[in-house]
Every structure is written in structure tokens, then in C-alpha cells.
């Protein structure tokens, strides 16, 4: 009796009833994956770089010892805030990536159905997967704990901020992981899951609060609104807490709403996990009885296809096949549907998006803000970000998807030249990117017709979009040839864009604040910023969106103030980036027949 009670307590404490053997298996497998070590190293390296740069920015060299000591508390606050924010954002990204294949891998290696033939239940599958990844994320968080403890010695940082920051990070990561895992049940490709996760989080934490702010600004005060939003929005909450910590007037301690926020996030995660458990069970049972795929829609489509093919044996009901016109690869790329197979779902999403867009236009019109340049800058930046996102993804998938469907060797075994294949693929990328870029041009042309934006903006934005597309298509094609898996290629292309347009500008700006005395470096920093596509977009719209007139082009460093000078600068950037893009495309062509299998 005592022994069995003892065993029961042991089992209860070991948590194996919660996760089953999945947790153990995941830990064992993850220890063999090189990418996990690369991830930890990269995380630690980035954390260290930011830490060093922040330290140098806050505690400048030179000056008396007393001055330096007086800066310590300020430096401590700054460093802690940097670490907390770095962890908060970086670990969300890592969680989204790590859990993006958690269920889909099991589905497509057909092991989910196998698991259902064992006593393991879907709850254990979901929790086992989630906890194993969370453990690794907690390990990443734990790496920074000694630094947080040491930096606190400098003084000025309350424990409450660190504790609340870590708790908010943990609950947000749990929520992000749950969202990513939920989407991984329905999507095979990790990058689709990652994008869906980003879009969902963007909608929840940015779009909905903005829309709510638009509609409620006359009903509630700004502070009331943000206070209410902070209960469900970790970004707003952490920004509030950081502001309180940095401000000497507020006493530094975070507001108690963080505890309520954490509970809300935990409940939201639990609900999402419950839904995932139910969905996993359905998919697993379907697989256990021999049906592949994830959705009933897929099943319906397959059965329809079979029905069509059976019918075609007797009566020619199926639409006749289309004839191949022009170069083979080009034809194939242009033939495939722009919106994929889920045409109706995509069209509904587009329709909802457009309705939202026109609602925001209506709201801006109501507020007489449609002739405000900042409104158009905001729209342009959002559309540009969307366009860049799709232009990152589509070229990176075009050859890896051939490799994954194993048709790549067949294509290479034909008499098609590498150049023909490359051009065909590039044309396909252009065609698929077109609808997304149409949003940006649609907005600019609409307001050009309305007399708000100068027509020149269309041409200058055309130059900008042209080099973005060529550059990202070149790098995307290269990574698509270089790697076997679509996810790796997409992540690499995303990494290149993030590196040159987000990380490097941020790092060199930090370095610029450290070496304030070196004017040349400062000028270099600003010149580098002036090559950034978002800076281009902001400068173009700021110069052209004022009742249809033209203003000065306010670059950070470049002295191109009038239209012709600004256009020459844009064309120079276009040349540089296009050269780089074409170089990558050429390297892709050279590697076509390497790593074929």
C-alpha cells in the first residue's frame, strides 16, 4: 500500500502523466540537432553584442571616475531594459520558429497515426511537444539571469521590473508557442506557420488595438485606453513598465496589472492548447485509418479529384487540359494559380482585408486626416513591409519546392538550359508577388487621383519596388538552390533582409552613439540608413504627399534634396542592389546542378 502510494506520488511528481514519453523523446532528438546549438550560440552572441554596445553607449570612455560611477545606475537601468526587451522579442521569434513544425513533422512523417495506436493521448502529444521546446526557451532565458543579477548591483533597478519582465516574457512565449503549434496542425511548411503566427500576433497586438483606438478615442481617455489594453497586450504592458522603471518620478516599480495580464495570457494559451488537442486527435485518428493530410478540405479535394478522374474514364466531364505555350518553365510558373488551391479562403481573407482597409480610410476621412503625410507614410510602410515579406518568401520557395516534390532532377534531366529555368522561375516570382505590391501601388494611385499624392511618387516607388524585387529574388533563388528545405531557404532570405535592413542599421547606430566624436562614422551610419527601403518609402511619401505638391526630400545624410537629385540617388541605390541581386541569381545558376539530390 505504502509502496504503491509512493510510486503514485513519484509518478505525479515526474509529470510523465502530463507529457508521456514525447517529452523525453523530443529532448533526446533536440540534443542531436545542430541547429539548436547554432541557435543558442547566436542568441548568446547577439545578447553579448547588445550588452557591450549598450554598456559603451551609457558609460562613455574618458571623464572622471566619479562621473563614470554616476553613470552606473543609468547604465544598469539601460542594460536591464535592453536585456528584457531583447529577450522578450527574440524568444518570441525563437518560439514561433521552434514550434512551427512541431505537429506538421509528425503528420508528414506519418508518425502521428502511429502514436494513436499507443496508449499516448493527444493531450500528451501537444503538452509533450510544447514543454520540450519551452524547456529550451527557458534555458535561453536562464542564460541571461546571471547578467541581470550582476547588472542590478549597479543600482537603480527594482526587482519587480525584472520579475514582471521575465513573467510577461514567459507567458507571451507560451502564447506565441501555442499559436505556432496550432497553425502547425494545418500547415506542412514551417514558413507558412511562421507567417500566420506573425500575422495573428500582429492583428492581436497591433491592428486590433489601433482600430480600437480609432473608434474609442472620443469615448475613453488615452491613459484609460492604454491601461485597459495593457491587460491583454504584453507590448503595451512592458512599454509601460519600462517607462516607469526608467522614470525617476514613478518609483520604478511596475504596475500590478502585470499579474492579471499573465493570468489572461495563460488562460488564452490554455484555450488554444485545448483546441490544438482536439484538432490533433482528429488529424491523428484520420491518419491512423490511412488518410493522409490535415484538413477535411484536403480530403474532400482528393475525393473530388478521384471522382473526376473516375468519371473521366466514362464521360469527358473534366475540363480539357491546357496546352503548353512558350517556354516550358515560364508556362508552368504562369499557369499555377496565384492564390494556390485554397482560392476561396484566400479571396475571403483578401475581401476582409480590403473592407478593413476602406474602414480605416473612412475613419481617416472622418478625422480629416487623409491629407496628412504621416497617415500615408504609415499605410506605405505597412504595404511595403507586406510586399517585402512576400518577396522574401516566394523566390526562396520556388526551387526548394521542386526539390521537395522531387521534380527538380527531372527538370534538370531535360534539355532546358539553366538560364531558361532561372528566367522561368523569376517570372513566376514576379507574377506571384504582383498582387501584394498592387496594394502599395493601389494606395498611391488612389490618392494620386484624389490629388493628395504627387504622381511622381508612383515612379519613384516603382524604382524602389523594382530593386527590392530583383535583390530579394536573387538572394531567394540562391538560397532556394543552396538548401534542400524550403523553411531553411526562407529563413535565410528573411535573415539577409533582417540583417541588412534592421539589425545592421541598429547596431551601427548604437556604435555611432559610442563613437560620437568620429564624424565620418556618424555620416556613414546615416548614409547607410539612406539606402534602407523603409527610409526611401518614408522620404518619398513625405516629399510627395502634401495636396499633390512636391516638397524637399529629407534624407538623413544624402544631400539630394530636389526631385532630380533624389531620383538619381534612388537610381544609384537601385543599381547597387540590382547588381547584388543579379550576382546572387548568377551564383544560383552556377549551383543549379550541385546538391541536386
Amino acid at each position, binding site marked *: 500500500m505504502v509502496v504503491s502510494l509512493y510510486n503514485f506520488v513519484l509518478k505525479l511528481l515526474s509529470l510523465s502523466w502530463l507529457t508521456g514519453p514525447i517529452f523525453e523523446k523530443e529532448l533526446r532528438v533536440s540534443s542531436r540537432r545542430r541547429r539548436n546549438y547554432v541557435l543558442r550560440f547566436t542568441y548568446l552572441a547577439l545578447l553579448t553584442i547588445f550588452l557591450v554596445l549598450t554598456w559603451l553607449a551609457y558609460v562613455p570612455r574618458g571623464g572622471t571616475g566619479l562621473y563614470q560611477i554616476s553613470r552606473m545606475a543609468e547604465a544598469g537601468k539601460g542594460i536591464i531594459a535592453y536585456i528584457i526587451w531583447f529577450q522578450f522579442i527574440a524568444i518570441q521569434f525563437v518560439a514561433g520558429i521552434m514550434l512551427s513544425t512541431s505537429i506538421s513533422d509528425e503528420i508528414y512523417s506519418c508518425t502521428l497515426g502511429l502514436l494513436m495506436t499507443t496508449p499516448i493521448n493527444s493531450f500528451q502529444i501537444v503538452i509533450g511537444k510544447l514543454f520540450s521546446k519551452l524547456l529550451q526557451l527557458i534555458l535561453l532565458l536562464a542564460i541571461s539571469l546571471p547578467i541581470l543579477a550582476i547588472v542590478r548591483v549597479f543600482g537603480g533597478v527594482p526587482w519587480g521590473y525584472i520579475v514582471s519582465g521575465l513573467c510577461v516574457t514567459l507567458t507571451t512565449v507560451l502564447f506565441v508557442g501555442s499559436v505556432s503549434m496550432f497553425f502547425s496542425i494545418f500547415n506542412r511548411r514551417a514558413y507558412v506557420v511562421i507567417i500566420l503566427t506573425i500575422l495573428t500576433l500582429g492583428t492581436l497586438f497591433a491592428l486590433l488595438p489601433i482600430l480600437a483606438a480609432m473608434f474609442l478615442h472620443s469615448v475613453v481617455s488615452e491613459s484609460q485606453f492604454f491601461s485597459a489594453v495593457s491587460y491583454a497586450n504584453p507590448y503595451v504592458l512592458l512599454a509601460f513598465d519600462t517607462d516607469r522603471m526608467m522614470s525617476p518620478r514613478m518609483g520604478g516599480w511596475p504596475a500590478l496589472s502585470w499579474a492579471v495580464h499573465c493570468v489572461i495570457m495563460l488562460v488564452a494559451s490554455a484555450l488554444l492548447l485545448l483546441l490544438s488537442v482536439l484538432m490533433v486527435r482528429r488529424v491523428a485518428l484520420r491518419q491512423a485509418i490511412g488518410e493522409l493530410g490535415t484538413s477535411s478540405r484536403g480530403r474532400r479535394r482528393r475525393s473530388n479529384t478521384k471522382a473526376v478522374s473516375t468519371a473521366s474514364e466514362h464521360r469527358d466531364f473534366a475540363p480539357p487540359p491546357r496546352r503548353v505555350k512558350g517556354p*516550358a518553365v515560364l508556362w508552368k510558373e504562369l499557369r499555377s494559380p496565384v492564390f494556390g*488551391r485554397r482560392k476561396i479562403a484566400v479571396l475571403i481573407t483578401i475581401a476582409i482585408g480590403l473592407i478593413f482597409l476602406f474602414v480605416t480610410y473612412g475613419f481617416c476621412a472622418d478625422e480629416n486626416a487623409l491629407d496628412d503625410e504621416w497617415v500615408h507614410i504609415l499605410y506605405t510602410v505597412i504595404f511595403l513591409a507586406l510586399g517585402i515579406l512576400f518577396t522574401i518568401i516566394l523566390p526562396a520557395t520556388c526551387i526548394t519546392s521542386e526539390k521537395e516534390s522531387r521534380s527538380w532532377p527531372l527538370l534538370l534531366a*531535360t534539355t532546358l538550359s539553366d538560364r531558361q529555368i532561372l528566367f522561368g522561375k523569376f517570372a513566376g516570382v514576379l507574377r506571384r508577388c504582383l498582387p501584394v505590391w498592387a496594394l502599395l501601388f493601389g494606395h498611391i494611385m488612389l490618392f494620386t487621383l484624389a490629388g493628395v499624392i504627387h504622381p511622381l511618387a508612383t515612379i519613384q516607388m516603382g524604382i524602389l519596388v523594382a530593386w527590392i524585387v530583383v535583390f530579394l529574388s536573387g538572394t531567394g533563388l540562391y538560397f532556394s538552390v543552396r538548401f534542400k528545405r524550403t523553411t531553411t531557404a526562407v529563413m535565410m532570405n528573411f535573415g539577409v533582409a533582417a540583417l541588412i535592413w534592421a539589425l545592421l542599421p541598429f547596431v551601427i547606430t548604437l556604435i555611432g552613439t559610442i563613437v560620437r566624436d568620429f564624424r565620418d562614422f556618424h555620416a556613414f551610419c546615416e548614409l547607410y540608413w539612406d539606402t534602407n527601403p523603409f527610409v526611401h518609402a518614408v522620404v518619398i511619401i513625405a516629399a510627395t504627399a502634401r495636396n499633390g505638391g512636391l516638397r524637399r526630400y529629407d534624407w538623413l545624410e544624402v544631400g539630394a534634396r530636389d526631385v532630380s537629385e533624389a531620383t538619381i540617388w534612388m537610381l544609384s541605390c537601385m543599381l547597387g542592389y540590382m547588381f547584388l541581386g543579379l550576382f546572387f541569381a548568377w551564383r544560383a545558376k552556377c549551383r543549379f546542378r550541385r546538391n*541536386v539530390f
Partner: protein
Amino acid sequence: MIKTKNLSKDYGSLTAVANLNLTIQQGDIFGFIGPNGAGKTTTMRILVTLLEPTHGTAFIDGLDVRKKGKKVRKLVGYMPDFMGVYDDLKVFEYLEFFAAAFAIERKKRKSIVDGVLELTDLQSKRSATVDSLSRGMQQRLGLARVLIHDPKVLILDEPASGLDPRARIEIRELLRELKRMGKTIMISSHILSELEEICDHVGIIEHGRMVFSGTLEEIRPRLGIESKVRVQVANNQDKAVELLSALPQIRQVQVIDDYISVTFGDDQEGDGIIARTLVNGGLDVTFLQPEQLKLDDAFLQLTKGIVH
């Protein structure tokens, strides 16, 4: 038609193919046999220009696969050991796409695609999407794709793997038809009995090295295999054993159940002598059959089954 000279392919420290010398005559069906990981697929991939050899050369119709890649690809139809499909294409579109990829004129394509569909008995599936086809149908489609540009050489990597017996027989018949059309076919398979029925020559490869190349008849002396005859007599089996043991050509006589297994000396064959001796000795011969060397036996004797 196909010739390799000291062909080698290394993957880091692993040698997949080592000094492989191979000759396949025009119009032959060549069976390429070997255990898993022996180097069959690597050799085939080199021949179709998808892999570069580390050393040595390979020629298709006198063209160096390294230097004349595009011309070689025009001559060769390659069917890999997997089916590469474009999910969103129909059967006719899939074939026409490859016809266009092989630069066949547009006006000729329809008749060519219809021709290969007929040859592979896929006309009823021309409007079906490729991914809705069964495994057997997909294999047929693979063969149809290979034939689309009317290549002189067909290199087929395990074309019958995973098929049911009926589909295997149909593929076999199709290959015979292709041989009649004058195609040179190199085929690898694990179903050795099938190769035995259709191949003119076989090559057995292990550890990347060719351990045997020639006709099935040439394997016996190469392996030092003695010829055997199984005999059954209606009565007095002991007397039969006594008579046969006395013959100088015969090295061993063994009784296995109701049968007598007679082993001849080197290069000796003589089922005629056995029959004559037994009949002259007043015995009724009810069964007499030379034991044939099966490809499976040769494969087992020539290879050790060790994989890389």
C-alpha cells in the same frame, strides 16, 4: 551505346562507385543489380548528367557525359527511383510540359503525347491530375515521360518497385515493346527474377565495383558453378545411383528424397548420357531436368550483402 571507363564517385570519404567499367550495346536490355548502397543509382545519375564523376569518364553514344551534357540529355530518358510530380498539373499537361522542356515543336507535341499515352495505356487518365493517380499509374506516367522525346537510351531506376504483380507484368511487357522499338535500356531492380526474363545482359555491382558483367549463361563458368541434373526413376533407385556413380563424367551422385541429384565435373554437361545410361540399365526415367542457375543464386554468390 553506353560505356564507362574507370568511373568513380566519392562522397567525402565514402566511395560510391569505384573504377567502374561498363559497356552496353545498342538495343540491349541491361539489368543492373546490386545490394542497397552498391552504387547503382549513383552510376545512373552520372550517366544522365545529374552527378559529376570524381574520376573516369562515361559516354552515351560516344558523347562524354561531362562535356556534352545537353546533347546527352537529348539522347537519354531517365526515370528515377522516385516519382517527381507537379501536384497541380494534369497528365496531358505534365507530359506536354516535358515535351516543351525537351524543345519539341508545339505542333508535334499533341500527337507525341497522345502516342506515349497510348503506348503506356494512359489515355483514359489524360485529364486526371497527376497526384490523383495510383502508384502503378504514376510509374506508367514516369515511363511515358521518359519516352516523350523519343530517346535512344532509357535509364530506368527500379521502375517496378512497389507495384502489384499485374502492374509489374504490364511494365515488363512495355519494356519488351520498347526493346522491339530499338531502344537501349539500362534497368536496375531488386526483383531479380523479372530482370532474368527480360535482360540480355546483367551487371552485378557491389561496393561500387562491378563484380560481374555479361550474359546469364556466362555467369556459370565465371562462378565455377557445376552443372547439375535432377533425375527420378520409377523403380530401383539404388541401381540408378550405382549406374550413375560409375560414369567418369559424373563427380557426385546424391539422393534427395525421391530424386537423385547428379553433379557433373567442370564444364561437363550430359543429361543425354544420364538418360541413355539409365534406360540401357533397364530403368524407367520419370523425370529428368537440368538445374538452372537463377539470377538470385548468382546474385547471392557474387555479393556479400554488405552495404556502405
